[in-house]
């Protein structure tokens, strides 16, 4: 499986010089942000994410119902002025439930994405920089985890985590979300390792950990930022799939996954139970992945497999 190393490594430093009329050399940050600003996809995703986040924070305020309220006079009602997204068969307000579920899913996504990226960065950098047996062992564990579909391990481990709070799910999802990025970081580190500035630091007697922290990680940071962004959507997808089958978020907590699971049976007859949470889920993940994709283009417009 070593072929992937060559396939997906983006040379971070190889930015095409863009013409910006200025005497001073353009800083990398300004270059990337100027590229981002001219990508329509970035704006679509960014505005989408902003709207969703604001809605998750303030969306409950104008609603008359709380997510635990049961409206016994309107059970199984279709969307109306009173219940914007309709009610479930025991009279729960779907709008309030969707917002509360969205909050939980968003929090999980926003924590798991960056956390998995950090793990990927550290493990990949250690494997690539130290090399030798450490490297072999780490690559081997990564390959193993890629062969075992992580969904199945999630389900197995969730038997233990069921009794714990939903925070445990965050660690579970980030614990298995770092493998592919770690391979990419590892390959990147291997080439960084031979660069003069890292050699210089090494010959000056700087210890390994400091080199990784001060020289390697900053140089792969753009990859990690992209991974963290793309990981948000991936984490939300994993969480909803697990919760859908009853392995993830447990009652009384609500997430988009548990909502979809509850609305699944009535999907054809009372579609509002399913369609609204599903649409919001897709919109959220789509926005996050559009931002991630635009970032990837902006950081590295020449990269092969990731180019757009």
């Amino acid at each position, binding site marked *: 499986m070593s072929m992937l190393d060559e396939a997906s490594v983006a040379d971070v430093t190889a930015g095409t010089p863009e013409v910006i009329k200025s005497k001073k050399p353009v800083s990398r940050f300004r270059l990337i942000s100027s590229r981002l600003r001219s990508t329509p996809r970035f704006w679509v995703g960014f505005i989408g994410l902003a709207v969703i986040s604001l809605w998750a924070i303030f969306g409950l305020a104008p609603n008359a119902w709380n997510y635990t309220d049961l409206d016994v006079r309107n059970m199984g009602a279709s969307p109306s002025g009173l219940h914007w997204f309709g009610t479930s068969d025991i009279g729960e307000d779907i709008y309030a439930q969707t917002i509360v579920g969205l909050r939980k899913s968003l929090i999980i996504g926003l924590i798991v994405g960056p956390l998995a990226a950090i793990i990927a960065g550290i493990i990949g950098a250690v494997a690539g920089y130290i090399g030798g047996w450490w490297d072999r062992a780490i690559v081997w564990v990564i390959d193993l985890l890629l062969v075992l579909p992580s969904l199945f391990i999630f389900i197995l481990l969730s038997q233990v985590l069921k009794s714990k709070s939903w925070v445990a799910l965050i660690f579970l999802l980030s614990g298995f979300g770092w493998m592919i990025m770690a391979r990419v970081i590892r390959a990147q580190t291997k080439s960084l390792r031979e660069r003069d500035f890292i050699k210089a630091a090494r010959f000056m007697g700087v210890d390994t950990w400091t080199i990784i922290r001060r020289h390697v990680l900053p140089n792969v940071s753009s990859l990690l930022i992209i991974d963290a962004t793309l990981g948000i959507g991936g984490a939300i997808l994993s969480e909803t799939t697990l919760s*859908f*089958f009853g392995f993830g978020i447990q009652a009384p907590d609500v997430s988009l996954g548990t909502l979809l699971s509850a609305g699944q049976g009535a999907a054809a007859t009372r579609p509002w139970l*399913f369609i609204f949470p599903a649409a919001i889920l897709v919109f959220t993940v*789509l926005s996050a992945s*559009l931002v991630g994709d635009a970032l990837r283009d902006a950081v590295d417009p020449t990269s*092969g*497999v990731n180019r757009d």
Partner: protein
Amino acid sequence: MIGFIAKRFINYAILSAIATLSAYVLASIILNPASRYLGRNPAPSTETINSILDGFGTNPNTPVIERLWAWIVNLVAHGSLGNTIHNTSVISEMTARAGTSLRLLILGTIIAAVIGVVLGVWGAVRQYKTSDQVISYASFTVLAMPSFVIGILLMITATTLNNVLGIQLINFTGEYTAGLEGGWWVHFWDRAAHLLLPTISLTLMGAAGYSRYQRSAMLDVLSADYIRTARSKGRTRGSALLRHGVRVALIPMSTYFAYSFATVLAGAAVTELVFSWHGMGEMLMQAIQQSDINAFTGAILFNAILILIAGTLADIVYAALDPRVRV
């Protein structure tokens, strides 16, 4: 080339074997097979439970390493994967279910790969044109959906279609219509009709991912010098793109295919469950819910073998396309 493929095959085989064994150990540590008997009234005695669990080889009092060794010996010596908690052999359970899963998987993967490659190449050749934008946004949207949402949305569409037409045009619950009378041909059509929606669901997911990847790989190739050379020596644009472009762009795809296959398996398991098929995905989920260690390991072994086959096939394609590994 034979050497290359043999080396890769052995690599995959070791990985699959270790994945299966780790799955066994992990399941043995996490699942508690005694829980099935503990809640009964009247409660069976500890000796009874122990002897039942000893029979399955899943007694938690035996050290995991001993149970693992017994499991391996049983597999090597008798070719048996042990018994499920319903006291049927895991192998017979797997043979009953494997066909169902394989039918969906093989069809879904092949169609997805073909459509994904075609869409990717099309998008790259017509970069930033309307059709490319449509394909891009469509595949982003599909990739943003969990597989069960795709499945259920397809079901809603089919139900609406059936209602509008007033006939049961598309059947989607289960794998076949129970109690259907008729000859071989009727049964064949019935199964094909049931296969339609799950296959579409699996194909959509696969094709969305493959098309993104193929588009990037193709874009890379399009700017290469040898395409211009091929054109300048008199090849038509189509022929140059096909013979020199697509062929080269497929090389990274074959690696990506091997890597993404585990995801496809997980997606297929979810799809099976959503459409209530009695396949390997259901077996795996049920095994975990019922703390059935032997059945779980059997299902993981099935997946590991599929990954082994897919990985080797991808390497064969890789070797066939890339002359450098054949030397």
